[in-house]
C-alpha cells in the first residue's frame, strides 16, 4: 500500500484548543483560517476558525496523516460531517469553563453520531484545574445514562504529552475496531481459519 491518506478530526467549542492540539502533532505549522470573532459575547477571543485548521504528518511510502480541526461556532456545523467523512476517528475537546459543558458535549455526540457508532471517538476535558465542575465522574455517568462507553480524559492540550495520550487512546479504539472486523471476516462462512 502506498500514497494513502488518513485523517483524524479535532472538534469542540470555540476556544477548546483544537488549533493547539493540532500544532502539537503536525510537522508543519497549522494552517488556520482564522477570522475576527463575531461572537465576543459568548467567548472573549479575538479570532476564531471560520473553516478549519489543518496540520499533517508524512509517513514512509507516501502515506500521510491529515489533522483537521473543525470550526467551533455552531453556525459552521454543516462542515463537521463533511470533515469527518472517511476519518479514522474524532477527538472531542470540551472546555469545562463554559457555562454548560455537558450540553456542549451533547451537541458533538449528536452531530458525530456516525462516528460514535463506530466506537472511534475520544473525549478530552480541558480546564479542569480551574473549573473542576462537572467532574469526570459526572461525564462518565452522563455517558452511561446514554448507554455510551467512550473514553474521557482530562487534558491540557498545551502539553504535548496530554495530546499524545489522546491520540494513543483513539488509536487503540481504532485498532480494536480493525482487529474485530478482521476477525469477523475470518470467521465468515467460507473464510480460511487462522493465518
Amino acid at each position, binding site marked *: 500500500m502506498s500514497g494513502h491518506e488518513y485523517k483524524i478530526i479535532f472538534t469542540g467549542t470555540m476556544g477548546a484548543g483544537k488549533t493547539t492540539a493540532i500544532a502539537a502533532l503536525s510537522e508543519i505549522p497549522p494552517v488556520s483560517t482564522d477570522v475576527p470573532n463575531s461572537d465576543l459575547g459568548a467567548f472573549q477571543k479575538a479570532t476564531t476558525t471560520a473553516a478549519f485548521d489543518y496540520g499533517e*504528518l508524512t509517513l514512509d511510502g507516501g502515506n500521510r496523516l491529515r489533522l483537521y480541526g473543525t470550526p467551533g461556532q455552531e453556525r459552521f456545523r454543516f462542515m463537521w460531517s463533511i470533515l469527518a467523512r472517511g476519518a479514522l476517528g474524532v477527538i472531542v475537546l470540551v472546555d469545562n469553563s463554559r457555562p454548560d459543558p455537558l450540553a456542549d458535549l*451533547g451537541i458533538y455526540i449528536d452531530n458525530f453520531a456516525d462516528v460514535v457508532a463506530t*466506537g472511534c471517538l475520544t473525549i478530552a476535558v480541558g480546564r479542569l484545574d480551574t473549573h473542576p465542575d462537572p467532574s469526570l*465522574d459526572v461525564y462518565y455517568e452522563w455517558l452511561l*445514562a446514554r*448507554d455510551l462507553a467512550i473514553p474521557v480524559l482530562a487534558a491540557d492540550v498545551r502539553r504535548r504529552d496530554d495530546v499524545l495520550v489522546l491520540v494513543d487512546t483513539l488509536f487503540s479504539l481504532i485498532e*480494536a475496531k480493525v*482487529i474485530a472486523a478482521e476477525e469477523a471476516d475470518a*470467521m465468515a462462512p467460507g473464510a480460511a481459519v487462522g493465518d
Partner: protein
Amino acid sequence: MHASLITMADDRYNIALVGLRYHDRTLLRSLFRVIDGRTPQQWVVDPEAPAHVVIGDTTSPEMQGVPRPPKGPIVINMAANGRTDGADELRLARPIRVNDLVHVLALVGGRLASGATGMFRSNAGGAAPVTVREGELSGTLDSVLRTIVKRTDNNCYRITGDLPVLLVWPAEGRFATPLDNISLSRALAGTGQVHGEALGRDGPGWTLQPGSVRSLRDLLWLAGLHAADAPARFPAGSATRYRLTSWDILLAAPEGRSFISAGAHLQRNALTLDDLALRSGLPQRRLVALLSACELCGCLGVTHDASEMRAARRAATPKREHGVLGILRRIRERLGIEQS
C-alpha cells in the same frame, strides 16, 4: 420548609433534589435538558421555587422533613439499599439511565394530572451527618470522607473539592485506610457505604509516594490489581466473557494507562481472557489484574456464552503490519507514542 396544597396550572414542573450526592445532582440537572421534549411535561430544577416533585435518597436525614402526598410532593426514591416507602413508591435506580428517568417521570406526570398534590420548599441542606463510634465510621461515602477531613487534616488525609480525593502524605510513605481490606472495598463499591474500622494505621497497605493524590476509586483499582484471589476468579480457558462498561477508572488511575489497548478491545467486544490476551498481546497475568480491578470498580460486564467463545477461538492473530494497523504503528513511532 413547608408544604401546601396546589393545583396544576400548566405542564412545567419544578423538581427538588434532596439528600443526593453531588454528582447525582449534577447529572440529573443535565439529563432534564437531555429529555426535554421526550415527556409531555417540562421539568426544571429551581432551588428557589417550591417543588412539585422530590428526587431523593429516602434514607437520608434531609428527606425526613419532606412531607408525603397528598400534602407533600411526589417523591422519587433513589435510595441504594432497597428500603421502600411502600408499594406505590416511585424509584430511580443508579446508574441513572435516560430511559428509566423518562419512564418514572411519565408515571409522575400521570399522578400530577390525576389530582391535587403538595409542594416542597427546600432550604439547601448540608452533608448528611455521620455516625461515629469508637474506631468506626458509618454513613454515606461523601459524609464519611468529610469527617475524615475534620479528624485527620494535617495528619494523614485531606479531601479536595467535591470528589472523594485523598491526599496521602504519611511520613513513612505508607498508606492505610479501611480500603486495605479487599472484602470491605468490594462492599463499599456495591453499597456506597463505609462500615468498618476507620483509619487503621497498622494494616497492610500499598506503598505510595508521599504527597500523591489518589481518588477513592484509585484505591479500589489498586485493591483489584493486587487481589490475591484474582487468578482463581479469572481462570485461563474459561468460557466467561468480559466487557468494559466504562472507561473512567482505566483512564483516571496512573496504573490504568498501560491497559488502554486492552480496554479498547474489551469495550468493543465481550472477550474471554484468552481472546483478550490474543488481541492485546499482554500476558494473562496482567490481564487478570486488569479484570479484577475493573470488577472491583464496577466497570466490568460479565457474560457466559459458549457459542461465541467457540467462534472467537477461531479468530486469527492480528496482522499488525498491514493496512490501517501498520499505519497507526508508524504514526505512533513518528510521534514517540509507546504502544499502551
